[in-house]
């Protein structure tokens, strides 16, 4: 979706103003810790996947996405998923009282003793697929100009541009489908673009950008 999250090349956002590394805290407020913990823990209920979680954060008014702090966007995304999956209701949230209901999810709930192993395990997304990769290192590719309303990991600034395949990463879960709950593998490539190709005369200096792109985003140039 062409949302407020797709920021590559946007103007007017000001300076970065990084906090000094030696003094920056991991969390700046206690509620950020909670949003972080709740988001990770809730994912173990297995009612949504990583791409659905990202998509939930993206599905906001662009002005809200940009105005919110990072963990406010996580909060908004989590709330949306909890409502959509009917795990909680607005009435429950407003009243602070849970309506008693049978839940089938108890066995999925992440327990403290399981956290360490779960984090060390992670969730690999590489897949074995039948068809061989269509492209190899050095191939020139044209990036399709697509504007799906759903989730995609093809940033706007790469659409319609020409690049060169640099790396074949193997087949990974395709986010555009995964956000719809369909887990399918597609070949993933590191594609290199020149600054001139991406930004034309606006490119102040020469540099290159490598973007990871799945095969369905590409065609032979």
């Amino acid at each position: 979706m062409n949302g407020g999250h797709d920021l590559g090349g946007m103007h007017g956002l000001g300076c970065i103003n990084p906090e000094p590394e030696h003094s920056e805290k991991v969390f700046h407020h206690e509620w950020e810790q909670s949003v972080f913990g709740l988001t990770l823990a809730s994912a173990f209920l297995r009612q949504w996947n990583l791409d659905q979680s990202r998509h939930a954060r993206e599905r906001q008014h662009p002005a809200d996405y940009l105005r919110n702090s990072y963990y406010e966007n996580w909060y908004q995304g989590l709330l949306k998923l909890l409502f959509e999956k009917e795990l909680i209701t607005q009435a429950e949230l407003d009243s602070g009282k849970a309506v008693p209901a049978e839940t089938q999810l108890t066995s999925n709930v992440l327990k403290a003793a399981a956290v360490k192993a779960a984090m060390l395990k992670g969730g690999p997304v590489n897949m074995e697929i039948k068809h061989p990769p269509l492209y190899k290192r050095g191939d020139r590719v044209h990036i399709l100009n697509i504007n799906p309303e759903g989730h995609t990991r093809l940033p706007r600034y790469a659409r319609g541009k020409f690049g060169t395949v640099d790396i074949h990463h193997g087949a990974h879960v395709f986010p555009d489908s995964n956000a719809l709950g369909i887990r399918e593998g597609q070949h993933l490539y590191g594609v290199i673009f020149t600054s001139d190709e991406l930004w034309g005369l606006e490119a102040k200096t020469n540099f290159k950008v490598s973007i990871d792109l799945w095969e369905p985003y590409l065609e032979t140039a």
Partner: protein
Amino acid sequence: MNDNHTSPPSEMELKVKALESLLVEKGLVDPAALDELIDTYENRVGPKNGAKVVARAWTDPQFKAWLHEDATAAIASMGFTGRQGEHMKIVENTNVIHNLVVCTLCSCYPWTVLGLPPVWYKSAPYRARAVMAPREVLKEFGTEIGKDVEIKVWDSTSEMRYLVLPERPADTKDWSEQKLSALVSRNSMIGVEKARLPEES
């Protein structure tokens, strides 16, 4: 920022507290698991992991070769595995190339070796500008890269996670792995800075 507990709670504090209480009451999250998750990423997993990887790469050519060939396995051999580090790639800075990592679409970042990303990495200006004006972005971190050095920006649009291997500073010839790791800042492994110089450590 308001860490002063005597002031009234913010709107977000109240909202998040309400959500947490509800999810706990409904049995959908275990409060002890929340504490464990927060403690893991606040206190245990962080850029010290990445610094160890880099220092080993600086001192052990075989390990460096392994990192280039299969970064995920090489890093796993040091015990750093799992979430947001499932698929790792090392990108090495040299005297002809400087690598910089960003995620323009969200905040993808190699948690296993760097921990959670800093605020600036997740900020809109960094995400917007790193792919369009990287030299200007680097200048905001006080980093000047020679005109003869190519800048390569890695936009983390997939689950591949990129760790920059910064250049080893001069005058560190006989330094141990452990001593070297103190020169490896988090920012140097994202690519917005160079490794610290011996006199800065």
